[in-house]
């Protein structure tokens, strides 16, 4: 009886039930075999804290701190204030002259910056701006984005509608391909000249180039989560 009890004690202390199976357990064993061991709460090796103290000293005063990149914020999803409250995001919103409400963010991009005359290919100069838009969409983990193209009043209505739709689609495709925005959350529309934000002509009937320039635009409406 006595020897049996001691055997049981030894088995408990050193057998598979024992939690002393933490640490660097590499032994060339197939990892799948390890799963049979009960290692739910592996004990941290006794020298781990000592090693950690040395490592911390070596890091110096900033303890190895690194700035959180925009990308990190985007990947993390930033659901609780990491991204959209960050200075970087707020700065970008300002740079894009975004209009923010409780539920949405609207970014208006000039058609003259995004596209060459009568074209719908994204100009290389516009890519940095679109990258920022992509960062904002990801930082807010937006569940829905509406991209709408608008034109001025020059030309046929039907042509303007088609051109504005193609431009909206170009922006969407660029965001998917280059900014990693999920295609499924974006919707595109082409409104042509039907929703001007400035008069295309002056009160005397003369042309208003500044007004028309404002109307040539792509609006990006980002829904907040």
């Amino acid at each position, binding site marked *: 009886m*006595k020897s049996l009890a001691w055997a049981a004690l030894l088995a408990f202390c050193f057998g598979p039930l024992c939690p002393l199976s933490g640490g660097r357990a590499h032994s060339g064993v197939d990892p799948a075999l390890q799963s049979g061991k009960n290692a*739910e*709460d592996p004990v941290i090796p006794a020298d781990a*804290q000592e090693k950690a103290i040395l490592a911390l000293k070596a890091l110096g005063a900033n303890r190895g701190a690194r700035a959180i990149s925009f990308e990190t914020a985007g990947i993390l999803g930033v659901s609780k204030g990491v991204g959209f409250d960050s200075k970087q995001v707020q700065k970008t919103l300002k740079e894009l002259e975004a209009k923010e409400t409780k539920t949405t963010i609207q970014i208006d991009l000039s058609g003259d910056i995004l596209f060459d005359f009568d074209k719908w290919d994204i100009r290389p100069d516009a890519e940095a701006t679109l990258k920022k838009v992509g960062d904002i969409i990801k930082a807010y983990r937006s569940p829905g984005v509406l991209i709408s193209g608008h034109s001025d009043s020059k030309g046929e209505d039907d042509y303007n509608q088609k051109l504005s739709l193609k431009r909206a689609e170009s922006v969407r495709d660029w965001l998917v391909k280059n900014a990693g925005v999920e295609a499924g959350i974006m919707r595109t529309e082409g409104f042509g000249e039907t929703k001007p934000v400035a008069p295309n002509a002056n009160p005397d009937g003369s042309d208003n180039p500044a007004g028309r320039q404002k109307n040539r635009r792509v609006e990006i409406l980002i829904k907040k989560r």
Partner: protein
Amino acid sequence: MSPRSKKILAFLGTGLLFSAGLFFGQEVIQTQSHNTVEGIEADLTSLEIQNNIVTVKFKLRNTAAEKQNVTIQFKDCYIMDEVNQKKYYGLKDTDGLFIAGPAYDDQNGGRFWYGIQAGKSMGLWIKFPQPADNPASITISLPGVSPFESVKLAK
């Protein structure tokens, strides 16, 4: 049964109860799901600060019907100070190995790479620097697992 045998059995019983407590009565601070390995749930079971070092422990549970292989490269684990926008990777020893475990091997400073049988679980621990600005809470990021957000740091 002799009184001595009774004492030994009582000792063993206490030990078993303690062991069971460790395995089944663990407190869970927060649970997140693995994003790519089906059925793997990660419980944050402990967070301790000592000598400006944060030690975190997790339990990876396989809730799927089949065994699942889980790989976690320690080099991709970090904690984040949300307020000050800083992140901190795990601490490394003088051999360049992360002070974390259990490590299947030393690849990239060490990695957790184990098959977890259906219904089973495995523990995981990592040591990080305590964020220099002493935030009230941190986010803990394990690769492939949704982030553990707003985890309070005990002062």
